[in-house]
């Protein structure tokens, strides 16, 4: 959702960290529950990064699967269980993984001597 704003934020974060150096790669971590469509991010990135230090950078997305922890038996399970704990059959639980949406690191060209 809102991939254009998200992509703009990614470029802003990366260019601030890069401090005028050219960015060669931006590494993202995106959780399954972050409601982000990879294809849309890539599409927006081409447009948004144009004319910035991030233009041409390789965008990589590491996807993190959702994990729900059962409140009754602490079993952890994924979205494919449709909210039903495979350990004890209880419905629902706490989301302990899957909401991540962050820039993990960037790679920049070395400063020339």
């Amino acid at each position, binding site marked *: *959702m*809102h991939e254009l704003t*998200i992509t703009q*934020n*990614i470029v*802003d*974060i*990366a260019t601030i*960290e*890069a401090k005028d150096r050219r960015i060669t790669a931006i590494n*993202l971590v995106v959780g399954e*529950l972050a*409601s982000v469509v990879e294809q849309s991010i890539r599409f927006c990135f081409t447009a948004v990064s144009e004319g910035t230090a991030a233009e041409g950078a390789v965008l990589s997305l590491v996807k993190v699967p959702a994990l729900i922890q059962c*409140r009754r038996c602490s079993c952890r399970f994924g979205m494919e269980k449709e*909210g039903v704990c495979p350990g004890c059959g209880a*419905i*629902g639980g706490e*989301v302990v993984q899957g909401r991540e*949406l*962050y*820039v*993990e*690191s*960037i*790679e*920049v*060209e*070395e400063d020339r001597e």
Partner: protein
Amino acid sequence: MKIEVVKNILSANEQMAAENRNLLEKLGITAINFMASPGAGKTSLLLRTIEAIGAPVAVIEGDIASTFDAEKVGETRVPVVQINTGGECHLDASMIRNALEKLDLKNATYLFIENVGNLVCPAEFQLGEQVRVLVASVPEGDDKPFKYPGMFGAVQAVVLNKIDVLPYIDFNLARFTEGVLAVNPDVPIFQVSCRTKEGVGEWIDWLKKLES
């Protein structure tokens, strides 16, 4: 050369929301973010709440267009500001910051923020509120908690409005409740009718406890 960053992509909004929250706390104001589908009854609930709460209130209205809601609230004489996003489908912290500068908060104990009608996006954007409330309604159907777990899981109270039409709609209250509690086990669910005022008292009691 690799530079470690580890920065949330929505951090700019989170930062501004934190600043809004600090400002409101310093003023002793309890801010509540009301979210719902279009037509569920956010404005109606606000009007019933303003009528019954017995404490000074200020309101921020959010819509893509029109000032209808701010006009209705304005008739109650509470200070109100209307935000028209012009297309953005949710309010964000910077819009709230701008609105706070225009609002007379001198005497307010509560700030009610009525978000844009939308069951998806508002859940992702902190505004600086203390509490988030979802207004669901009977005609929307009892399956909405299953279809919108992000929203139902992100709030501190659910108000189920339009219970006066339960006799005319296929709405299974037990199924709705099960769906809500599956994603939000401790959340209170207030069954109300803004039209008949049924159930509004319990909702007001809960709100009053928040402020103290």
